[in-house]
C-alpha cells in the first residue's frame, strides 16, 4: 500500500497547563474522505491549525507527503489546500481578486484555472462583486475555491458545510467524493453535521477532549440489508403480535399502534406478507437504522462541553 499522505504521530498541544490535544496518532491515505468528528471544544480546529502550521506542536510530529510541517514547512504545505474555521477573505476586494491573490502565491496557476474553479463552486455570477456583499454560503464557496485552486493532494476543510444550503451541501459532498475517488486526493473534513459525515466520508475519527477515541469505517448502502430494528404501524397491535408469533417471530408492542421487531431485508418482506395474510392492515414499515449520530452520541456519551 502507498504510504499515507498525512501522518500524525503522538501530536500533543498544551496551552498553559491545559492539554488541548493529547497524543493524537492518525494516518490518512490518498483517495479517502476522512471525517473528523467531535463535540464543541474537543480540539478539531486546533488539530487542523497544527496540520497547516498555524500553531506549533508541544510534542509529536506531523508529516505531510513525507515532509515535517515544523521543519520543512514550505515543502510540506505545498500540496495542501485548506479552510480553517470560517473562510475569511479580503472584504474590500472582489471574489476574483481574492483568488488572484492566492493564485499569485503559488507559481503556475493560470487565469483559466481560476475561472474553472469559480465555475466549479458556482460563483460565476457574482465573482466580480466585492466579498463584503457576499452571503455566508457564498463566502464558504469562495473558501472552497481558494482551497482547491492549486490542485492540492490533501484538502483540509474545517466545517465546510457551515452556511451552505442543501443544494450546496450536496454539491460539495459529490465534489469531494469525486476528487477523492477520481483524482485520488485525500480529504480531511471536520463537521458538526453528523448525518452529513455519514454520507460523505469513508472513515470517521471521533475525538473528545483532545483524545482520539475511535476510528470507524462507514459502511456503504449494502449494509442496510443487515438486521435492523423495524417499526411497523398496524391497525390491530395485539392481532399483529399474535400473527407473527404463530409464524415463529417475536415482536413487541411499541406505542399504541405499532410493533417493533428485529429483521433483515428478506425478513421484512416475510413479516409484511404474514401480517397481510392475517388480514392486518399495515400502514408503514420503518427501519430504525442506527445512524452515525446515535453511534457518536453513544461513544461520546452525549457529553456536555468542557
Amino acid at each position: 500500500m502507498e504510504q499515507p499522505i498525512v501522518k500524525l504521530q503522538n501530536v500533543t498541544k498544551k496551552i498553559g497547563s491545559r492539554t488541548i490535544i493529547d497524543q493524537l496518532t492518525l494516518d490518512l491515505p490518498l483517495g479517502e474522505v476522512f471525517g473528523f468528528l467531535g463535540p464543541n471544544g474537543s480540539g478539531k480546529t486546533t488539530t487542523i491549525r497544527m496540520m497547516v502550521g498555524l500553531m506549533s506542536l508541544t510534542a509529536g510530529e506531523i508529516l505531510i507527503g513525507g515532509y515535517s510541517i515544523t521543519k520543512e514547512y514550505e515543502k510540506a504545505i505545498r500540496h495542501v489546500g485548506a479552510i480553517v474555521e470560517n473562510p475569511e477573505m479580503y472584504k474590500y476586494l472582489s471574489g476574483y481578486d481574492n483568488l488572484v491573490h492566492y493564485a499569485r502565491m503559488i507559481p503556475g496557476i493560470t487565469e483559466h484555472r481560476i475561472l474553472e474553479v469559480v465555475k466549479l463552486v458556482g460563483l460565476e455570477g457574482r465573482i466580480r462583486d466585492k466579498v463584503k456583499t457576499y452571503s455566508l454560503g457564498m463566502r464558504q464557496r469562495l473558501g472552497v475555491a481558494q482551497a482547491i485552486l492549486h490542485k492540492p493532494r490533501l484538502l483540509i476543510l474545517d466545517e465546510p458545510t457551515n452556511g451552505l444550503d442543501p443544494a450546496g451541501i450536496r454539491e460539495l459532498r459529490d465534489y469531494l467524493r469525486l476528487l477523492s475517488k477520481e483524482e485520488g486526493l485525500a480529504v480531511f473534513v471536520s463537521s458538526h453535521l453528523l448525518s452529513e459525515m455519514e454520507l460523505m466520508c469513508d472513515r470517521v475519527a471521533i475525538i473528545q477532549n483532545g483524545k482520539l477515541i475511535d476510528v470507524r469505517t462507514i459502511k456503504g448502502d449494502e449494509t442496510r440489508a443487515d438486521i435492523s430494528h423495524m417499526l411497523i404501524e398496524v391497525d390491530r397491535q395485539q392481532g399483529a403480535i399474535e400473527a407473527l408469533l404463530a409464524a415463529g417471530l417475536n415482536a413487541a408492542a411499541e406505542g399504541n399502534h405499532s410493533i417493533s421487531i428485529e429483521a433483515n431485508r428478506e425478513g421484512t418482506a416475510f413479516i409484511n406478507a404474514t401480517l397481510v395474510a392475517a388480514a392486518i392492515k399495515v400502514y408503514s414499515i420503518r427501519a430504525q437504522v442506527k445512524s452515525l449520530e446515535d453511534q457518536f452520541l453513544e461513544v461520546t456519551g452525549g457529553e456536555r462541553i468542557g
Partner: protein
Amino acid sequence: MVDFLQLVRNENMKIYRRPRTWVMTLIMVTLVLFISIMWRIFSKGETSMWDVISMESFVLFLLVTIFTVVVSAGSVAEEFTSGTIKLLLIRPWSRSKVLLSKYISNALYAALLTIILFASSLLLNWLLFGLNPSDAAKQSTVPLPGEMAPFAYLLRFYGMKFITLMVTMTLAFMLSTIFRSSGLAIGLSLFLLLGVSSFVPLLAMLDYEWINYLLFMHLDLTKYIGSTVLEDGSGSSLSFSLSIIGAYYVLFIALTWYVFNKRDISA
C-alpha cells in the same frame, strides 16, 4: 525572486485597492493646493517659491508620517482582526518572507507619499510663484545653512526626513505585529513620536548620560543639514545620531520578525 515580487504585488493590491489610501493621498495634495493658493492670494505674489515649498514640506511631512503609520500599523494587525492571516500563511512561503513582502510594500507607500508631497509642492508653487516672480520674490528670504542652493537644501531635507520616516514606519509595523491591533499601534507610535518628541528640548536640558541614547533625541535629522556636528554644545553629530537610529532600527526589525515567526495563529 520573481515569485517573491508576486507577494509584494499582493500587498500593494491590498494597500491601493482600499479607498482610504486614496482619500489620504488626496487630502495631502488638497492641502498643498489650499496652502499655496491662500498664500498666493494674501501675499500678492511677493514671496519666493522656495519659501512656500520649504514651509509646506515642513508642515505636511507630518501628514506623510501619520498616513504612513496608519497604513503600516494596519498591514499586519488587520490580517489578524479580519482572520485573513490564516489563509495568507498556509501557502508555500515562510512567515519571514510574507512579513518582508508586507514591510516592502509599506516602505514603497511611504516613498510614494514622500514623492507626491515633494513633486506636488514643487510643481504647484512653481506655477503659482515661480513663473514670473516679482523682483522681491526672486530670492529666498529664509537663510539656508551654508549658502546652499534652495533645491539642494530641499533634497537634503527630504532625505533626512525619509530616514526618520522609515524608523517611524518600522516602529508602527512592530507594534502592529506585537499587539495585532492597528488602533493601538497607530495610537502608540504617534504618541511616542509626536507626543514624546515634543519634550525633546526639555529632556535635552537634563544632565543624564542615558538621555543621549533615547531614540527620540535623534529623530530630527534636519538640524544636521549644512553642518554635521552641532555647535550647541551638546556635541551630537550626524554619525552619532545615525548610529543610535540604526541600533533601534535593527532592534525593531529583529523583534518584529521574531514575534511573527513564533506566534501561534489562533485568530
